[in-house]
């Protein structure tokens, strides 16, 4: 969530942050570049349970950060917090307003609309009028007029990822983006991410596979997993860890 304090610092969209001293987990060269996303001492919750605490990282323009961690560690919770869907328990997420494009597990597609209609809708919501770049990037030309409900799981995923391009937002927060994609389309997706990075964007990606992004940093979130808050949690004992 963009805190009010952050909004005041960046009152106009797309204003990038001031350079700031880099954090221990940040790249050494980051201080020389524009930061697009700075996370300080972030604690995230899902429902009533605290999942992560003390998360610290920063992402500069052109950077990709790969989130790793076992199932249930809190990658999705972290990404939803970054996207502003869940307010952080403590800490700050410093980013320009409306900088983050979020893509979660669900595709967000309407089965009774065609591929072109689905994409055009999101383009219109985000104030873009041209979907051809997104269509080309994920090779959707062959089924533009088919209903999204008739697509295979991988084709739906490609359509859902194409939506990221029409948002024209600089920071992509992606949750398992390559699920149900074949090898060729994983490469296509990696190329789209690279083009986004080369264009001055950045990305935070939770994934278990190697996307082959040169220069991508990896952040294992296991050290940030919060201790169980509930004192009576039967599984909170060290023996269960």
């Amino acid at each position, binding site marked *: 969530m963009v805190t009010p304090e952050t909004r005041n610092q960046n009152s106009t969209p797309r204003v990038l942050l001031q350079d700031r001293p880099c954090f221990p987990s940040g790249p050494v060269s980051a201080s020389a570049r524009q930061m697009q996303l700075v996370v300080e001492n972030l604690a995230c*919750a*899902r*429902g009533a349970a605290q999942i992560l605490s003390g998360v610290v990282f920063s992402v500069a323009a052109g950077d990709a950060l790969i989130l790793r961690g076992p199932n249930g560690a809190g990658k999705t919770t972290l990404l*939803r917090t970054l*996207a*502003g*869907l*869940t*307010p952080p328990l403590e800490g700050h997420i410093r980013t320009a307003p*409306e900088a*983050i*494009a*979020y*893509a*979660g*597990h*669900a*595709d*967000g*597609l*309407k*089965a*009774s*609309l065609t591929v072109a*209609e689905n994409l055009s*809708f*999101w383009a*219109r*919501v*985000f*104030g873009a009028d041209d979907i051809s770049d997104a269509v080309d990037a994920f090779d959707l030309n062959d089924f533009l007029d088919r209903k999204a409900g008739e697509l295979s799981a991988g084709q739906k995923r490609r359509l859902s990822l194409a*939506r990221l391009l029409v*948002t024209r937002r600089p920071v992509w927060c992606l949750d398992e983006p390559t699920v149900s994609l074949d090898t060729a389309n994983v490469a296509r997706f990696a190329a789209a991410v690279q083009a986004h990075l080369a264009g001055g964007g950045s990305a935070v990606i939770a994934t278990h596979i190697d996307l082959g992004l040169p220069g991508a940093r990896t952040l294992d979130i296991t050290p940030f997993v919060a201790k169980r808050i509930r004192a009576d949690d039967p599984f909170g004992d060290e023996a269960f860890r």
Partner: protein
Amino acid sequence: MIGLLLRDLNLAVRAGGGFGLGLAFFLIFASLVPFGVGPETGVLRVIAPGILWLGALFACLLSLDRIFQLDWEDGSLDLLATSPLPLEGVAAIKALAHWITTGLPLVALAPVLGLLLNLPGPAFVWLVGSLAVGTPALSAIGTFGAALTVGIKRGGLLLSLLVLPLYVPTLIFGALTVARGAAGVDAMTPLAMLAGITLATLATLPFAAAAALRVNLR
């Protein structure tokens, strides 16, 4: 915003969209009443205003759980919440789309059903007027209820329980408008009250619905 409205209308009229469900329910409900209470025109003319308003209310209720539930299930609601559209605007547009696909057809169909129920001649204007003024409140209140219950599996029952008490003022003044119109006395006062309720719900409930959505999306 316009894009969202057009998409919702588009989805409603396509296969499986649920458009016409409320309308068909209203039609069947009102045409079954004479079978239930008997065909005496004297009885029907007395109960017609209340029956027509009740039918419209239940018809609205039928499609409420679709307002946010489908978008929540397929992930669109997350994406809308992170989009440049304000969530309050999303809620208002959803209510408007629900009214266009449910309330507006009811307004158009009501005079026909009034004939079936032997509604007195002077009451027809008041019937159409009161439904046109009152059904937006049903959609706005229903959108708020749908926002409160989004994410609850089979939350339709809870939604009905939450929303029905809130529908009472609209029902009272709506049916009273038609009944006074049928009796040939001035019905402006209940109609003005009805308009007041509608305006108040339209002004406040999109904000309440957006707040409820924010909580439910966590």
